[in-house]
Structures are given as C-alpha cells and as structure tokens.
C-alpha cells in the first residue's frame, strides 16, 4: 500500500540557518505516527510546511500519491489535512456549528441555512462523541471539548490526515483518555494521524510508528513496538556539545570565601494554575538555570518574582528583606528582568536604540526642577555600556531599534538592565532567535556579572545552553520544581526525564 504522506529530503532555512535538514519519512494509511523532539528540533517548522504556511527550500512532499506543494492553509485543507493546534484556532464568540463551517456555510443565496447547519454540526459532534448542542458558544467549552470541536472540523471536510500538536498538555486524565479512544477510532476508520507530544509514554502507547527529530534532522524512524522511553530520550538529546560556552570558574561569593551566601530566598510561592509551592535559594555569584517544557510555569514564576503578577502564598526575600510591590520597587532593589519576548515587553521597537537603553535608569539622570534630564551624563553612561555589550551600532543618530538584528536587539535589552547594575538578574530565554556569535557574547556577559557577585537566574528551553553556562539547574514541570542538579551531576537524560509530565 502506498503511504498517505511522504516527506522527501525536505529542507528549510531561516536567515541562513537550516532548521529542517534532509527530512524524509512516511505516514502510512490508517496509522498513527508519533513525532517527538526537543523544543526547537524542527517539529513546528515541518508542520508549517505541511500546512502551507511555509514552503520548503529543497525537497518535496507527496500526499495520496500526488506531489503536494501547498501554498496556503486553504490548499492543505482542500487536500484533506486537518490541524488541531496547541493554541486552538477557534472563535470563542461563535457557536460550535459556526466554527465548524466558518469557511463553508451551507447557504441559500446570501442567507445561511440554519437548519442544515445545525443538522450537519450535530452529526459531526456525534462522530467525535461530544454531547453538546451545536448552538453552544465555544467560549463555554473546556479545552478538551474545544479540541474535539477542532477534530470535528477536520472531519467536516473529510480530512484523511489529522495533525495533533501537543493535544494533552492542558487536559485532565479523563479528557486525555477520551481523546485517545477517539484517535484509535479515527485510525480504524482508515484516517492517519500525526501525533506530536512530549508525553513519551502516551506516544509509545498510541503510535504505530515513531519519528525522532533533533536539530532539524530525523535521527530515528521506528516501529513503536519494542521501543522504550529511555531510547527515545537518548535520541532526542544525544547531540554533540559545541565549544559555544565560555569556561566557568567555580562559583565564588565574590568576597573571597567559597561558602555560598544566600542572595534571594524564595519560599513556598503558590498561585492557582501557575505555581505550586516553589522554594529555592539563589546565591551570590551563582548562575542558576530553570529548565522545563513549554507551559511548565517558568515564565510565570519569573513574572511573580519581578512583581508583574500576583501570588497567593509564599515569600520572596532578598538579603533577608521581603520584596513587595511593582516592578518599579524591584528595580530599586536592583533586580532586573530580561523578558521572553523582546517585541512584546522587552523593547519599544519604534523608539531609538539610545532611548531603549536609557529607559530603566532614566530617573537617576533627572534633575529638579521639572525633572529635566542630564543628557551629558546619560550619553556617557550609554556609551560605556554600549562598549560593554559590544554593540556596533551608533547611538547618536536616532536609529530605531527595530532595524537591528535579533542578537543586537537582545544586546540593547541587556544593556538597559546592566546600566542599573543589578544584583539579581532574571533572564527568560536570553538567546532565543539570535545567532551563535551573539549567543556566546551574551553567555560571557552573564558570567562576568556573576563573577562580580550578582545572582543570575536563567530560564531556557535549550538544555544544552543551561548545562553550558549554569552552576546549578532547577527543573520545573506543571508549576512545581521536580528536580535539582548541581553542575557535577548535569545529565541531560535525567534532566529531561524530570521535565516530562509525570
């Protein structure tokens, strides 16, 4: 029997970086294929190629025996490929029926045939086992129910291949089981499924075949029978360490002694749905990593520590004094927070490089009356920090920060915080989307800061990065700390196992 879908030597690059390399694999008719890999292994890019959001640079795809080159999501849909996304693509303000037939309303002239719409929707809902009236607004549905609606949508155009991207991350056990039995039923109807998940146990239980991606390459293509979790994990992480990381001197307290001295004490931080009883200590001169999968609550924890989000229970103490209040107060306590998204809350993209760099430390340059700014002193400070972060661009020509590359933008954000001479620096995905050269420079800056006695908290999805620059790593899963590793015991497999959902 010919396979339903076939990737043949597909490649895709972004800005000269190959993120999908020579990928070939097949999805058989009526089979479930489990697709696994670390964050950034290329799974999403591959699915975007399949969905017509991106086009491959090299290679081709075959679907149902024909060459398949979708130019838009509409093409993929017409071919019979349905996506159930991690972030669901439903309109919460519309009803289930309206969502199901959004692009394909049964009409009579300009009017929607309400009766036919409800009838067809009801039939589809029955197929996926969702016992709700089709007129129910989607906003009243749970995540699990919304997923079933998305699957029903795929069935509405008789999709032969359904892609489920991390479908169970926010489902209860019961909802997951319901989804799994539906997946098995779809398979027995002769449909094929690509199932993407970090829950390796579920992958092994459900899939017929498993493909492992690492760094954009297929490193394993097996029949699921006879595979075990540890084999998958070692394939997922088994990459050579490159000489990207500066050598780390042993952590010192900055006062000559080697006794670790506590800088920030976090005790019992809890917030419903986000963090559960989180306690740890950050020491002077320490680079502490926080590892975990997407949605583990790492960013949420950082936002709580910086006073951006509230917490119900627990205390945060810096050198014995409890921290309260807004980010403004945290900054006065010499805390800094480089956020996950430069675009959203790291930079003012339209503003100039200099204005962005100066933003945090502006009040220190304000003179009464009228709090006018001392531009001479400000320019001096900016010039110094520009050299410290090795930013090439000039500051005096008002160049907008949006014209810079990702790496240089990140240097601007870093400079903004370094100007405030922080004693606690929280970095959330500090090297996301930036090139290798800038990465290594940022690692160096992190170490320099720690050597001066600051405590640095690094959140990253790249395990390699954390093991490369940290003195200690905490692992989070589902809002809890599930592992702690000192640098001597950094073991990628053990860390990944701690991060996987229990």
């Amino acid at each position, binding site marked *: 029997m010919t396979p339903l879908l076939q990737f043949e030597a597909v490649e895709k690059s972004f800005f000269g970086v190959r993120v999908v390399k020579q990928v070939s694999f097949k999805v058989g008719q009526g089979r479930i294929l489990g697709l696994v890999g670390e964050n950034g292994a290329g799974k999403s890019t591959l699915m975007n190629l399949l969905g017509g959001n991106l086009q491959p640079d090299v290679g081709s795809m075959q679907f149902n025996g024909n060459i398949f080159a979708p130019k838009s999501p509409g093409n993929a849909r017409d071919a019979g490929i349905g996506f159930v996304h991690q972030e669901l693509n439903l309109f919460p303000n519309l009803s289930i029926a309206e969502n199901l037939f959004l692009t394909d309303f049964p009409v009579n002239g300009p009017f929607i045939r309400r009766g036919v719409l409800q009838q067809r929707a009801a039939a589809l809902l029955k197929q996926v086992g969702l016992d709700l009236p089709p007129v129910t607004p989607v906003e009243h549905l749970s995540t699990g129910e919304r997923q079933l609606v998305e699957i029903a949508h795929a069935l509405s155009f008789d999709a032969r291949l359904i892609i489920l991207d991390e479908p169970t991350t926010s489902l209860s056990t019961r909802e997951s089981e319901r989804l799994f039995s539906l997946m098995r039923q779809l398979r027995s109807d002769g449909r094929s499924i690509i199932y993407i998940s970090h829950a390796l146990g579920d992958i092994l239980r459900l899939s017929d075949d498993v493909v492992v991606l690492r760094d954009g390459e297929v490193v394993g293509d097996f029949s699921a029978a006879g595979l075990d979790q540890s084999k998958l994990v070692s394939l997922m992480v088994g990459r050579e360490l490159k000489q990207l990381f500066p050598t780390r001197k042993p952590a010192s307290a900055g006062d000559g002694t080697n006794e670790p001295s506590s800088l920030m004490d976090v005790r019992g931080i809890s917030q419903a749905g986000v963090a559960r009883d989180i306690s740890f200590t950050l020491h002077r001169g320490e680079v502490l990593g926080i590892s975990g999968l997407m949605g583990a609550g790492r960013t949420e924890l950082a936002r709580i520590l910086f006073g951006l989000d509230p917490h119900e229970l627990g205390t945060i103490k810096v050198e014995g004094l409890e921290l309260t209040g807004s980010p403004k107060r945290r900054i006065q306590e010499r805390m800094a*927070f480089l956020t996950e998204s430069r675009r959203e809350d790291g930079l003012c993209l339209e503003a100039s490089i200099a204005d962005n760099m100066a933003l945090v430390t502006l009040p220190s340059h304000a003179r009464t009356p009228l709090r006018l700014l001392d531009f001479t002193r400000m320019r001096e400070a900016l010039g110094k920090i520009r050299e410290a972060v090795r930013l090439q661009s000039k500051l005096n020509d008002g160049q907008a920060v949006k014209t810079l590359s990702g790496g240089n933008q990140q240097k601007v954000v870093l400079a903004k915080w370094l100007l405030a001479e922080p004693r606690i620096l929280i970095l959330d995905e500090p090297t996301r989307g930036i090139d290798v050269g800038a990465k290594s420079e940022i690692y160096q800056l992190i170490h320099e800061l720690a050597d001066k006695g600051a405590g640095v908290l690094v959140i990253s999805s790249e395990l390699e990065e954390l093991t490369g620059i940290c003195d200690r790593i905490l692992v989070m899963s589902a809002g809890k700390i599930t592992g702690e590793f000192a640098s001597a015991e950094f073991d990628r497999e053990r860390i990944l196992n701690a991060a996987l959902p229990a």
Partner: protein
Amino acid sequence: MNHQAPYINRRSLAQPVLTALRSEYLVLFLCLLLFSALAPFTEGLASGNNFKNLLGNLAPLLVVAVGQTLVLIVGGIDLSVTSTIALTSVVGAFAMNGDDGWLKGSPAATPVAVMTMLGLGSLVGLGNGVAVTKLKMPAFIVTLTTMMFLSGLAIWMTKSKPLYNLPSSFTALGSQLWLALPIAAALAGLAHLLLTRSLFGRWLRAVGFNSRTANVSGVPVDAVIIAAYVACGLLAAAASVLYTARLETGSPVLGQRILLDVIGATVIGGTSLFGGKGKVLWTLFGVLFLSLLDNALNLLGLSHFTIMMVKGGVILLAALLDTARTRWLAA
C-alpha cells in the same frame, strides 16, 4: 548610454521633493505653499490686520492642540476637550460676571475665576485618566461620554444663555494679542521642554510606544497616563480662558465646533494616533496650517458649509500623505 541623462534629470528633480517629504517641516512648507498660492486671489490675506486676526485665532487652538498632543503620544485620545472649554467658560463667567457673579466687582474676581477654570479642567482630565487606567476603559468611550455629559451640564447650568459683562482685566487676556500670544507661547514652550528634555516626556513616549515594556522597565505607567490627561484638561481650560476673554462671553457652546480642528491639526502635524510619536513643534505647524486654511477660505467668502467640506477634504489628504510618506520612507 544616452538613456542616462533623463535618469539623472529625474533624480535631481525628485530630490528636493523627497527631501521635503522626509523633512519634519513638511507641514510648514505646505503652509507657505498654501499661502503663496492663495494670496494673489484672496483680498486681504496678506494684510497686517488679517495676520493679527489669524494669530488671535491660532493662539487658543494651539493651546488645546498641545494638550491633545500629549494624550495622543501616550496612546490615548481626548474627545472631551471642547466640552471642557465650554464648561470652564461658563463656570468662570458665573464667578466673575458683573451682573450676578459670585465675585462681582471684587478685585480678586479675575485671578480666582482663572484658577477655578484651570482647576476644573485638571479635574476633568483626572477623571478621564483614572477611568482609562484604573477602570481600564477605552479612552474613546470615556472621553466621548465625558464630552456629552459636560456639554449638557454647561447648557443646563446656563439654560443655554451666554453670560456677558466680564471684567476688563479678564477680557484683556484674550483680546490683547500681546497678552494672548505670549501666554500661548509660554504654555506650548513649557510642554515642548517637558516633552523633549524631561523624565516625564521620555516616560510619556515610552508608554505610548509600548506600555508593557514601560511597565517591566519600572515606568509608573498609570501615573504617566493620568498626568497626560490632567495636562490635557488643564491646557483645554487655559485655552478656554483665552477664548472666553477674546469673545468677552461665557458661552455653553464655546469650542463646540473645533474638535475636528484640534485632532486634525495634531495629526496633520505628524503626531501618531497609535502613540509614541509626536512633537509640540509639529502640532504648531498643524495648527498654523488649519488656521491659515480657515482664514483664507473665509476671506474668499465661502459659506460655512463649503469651508467645512474643504477642510474635511484637506485633512483627509494630509492624513493620506502622512501614511503614504511613512510607507515610502520605510521602503
């Protein structure tokens, strides 16, 4: 290679146009263009008396528009400025008029009335700012309803009758150009200084560009937004002082027709409706442009309605030019 000559030629022709388009003085150039194009056909446009008239109109409009500029920079909008002008005009006149004013004949009448007007304007701004930040309501709706409420209030208070007989020490503020112009210039200058050289100005722009980034960077976002609305209300009240004095009347419909002029002049000047970008100087050019257009069309003897149509068209053209220019320069 003979096709090169026209190429170079076209370039040299396009160069000044491009430079003008790029320049932040574009609107000033347009003013000069408008003036020199209309002056030959418009009797009295270039006369000294008309300049006086023009400047007298321009001064209060500039003051309101500068306040609007501050609010637009922070990413908001204030539609209630005209009703603030009307309300403060009425309240000021109630306080100091010579017929039945609370302070009739008192030497303190003028200063107290002016302070009351300014205080009331700030209070309106405070209300708008708090509603926008603390109640997280859209600025458009907040200030639209403020406008309706305050306009109604001003008319209700006066039973829609204007108040006359204001003290001469007050009316001088508006009718004497040597007083009105320096007041307007001082207020605009102060706003310019704060915007370009002060902590507040930087914070204002940062919040307008990206309030989330500003918040993470320790900017007191809510306080900055509230301050912008308070300044806008205060400046609207200051404009009301100039208008009321100039007309020697406390009028409940004062300023009713200038809302489009205020926002139009600010946007024509180049201040962005999306926040972050804006300068007092730009607004000055925008106000000059609209005042000049108004003045010239009036002298041409066009009816009020024709003037409105032409003004609407010109503001649309200017907005179009602005978006096109942004796109060209980005390309």
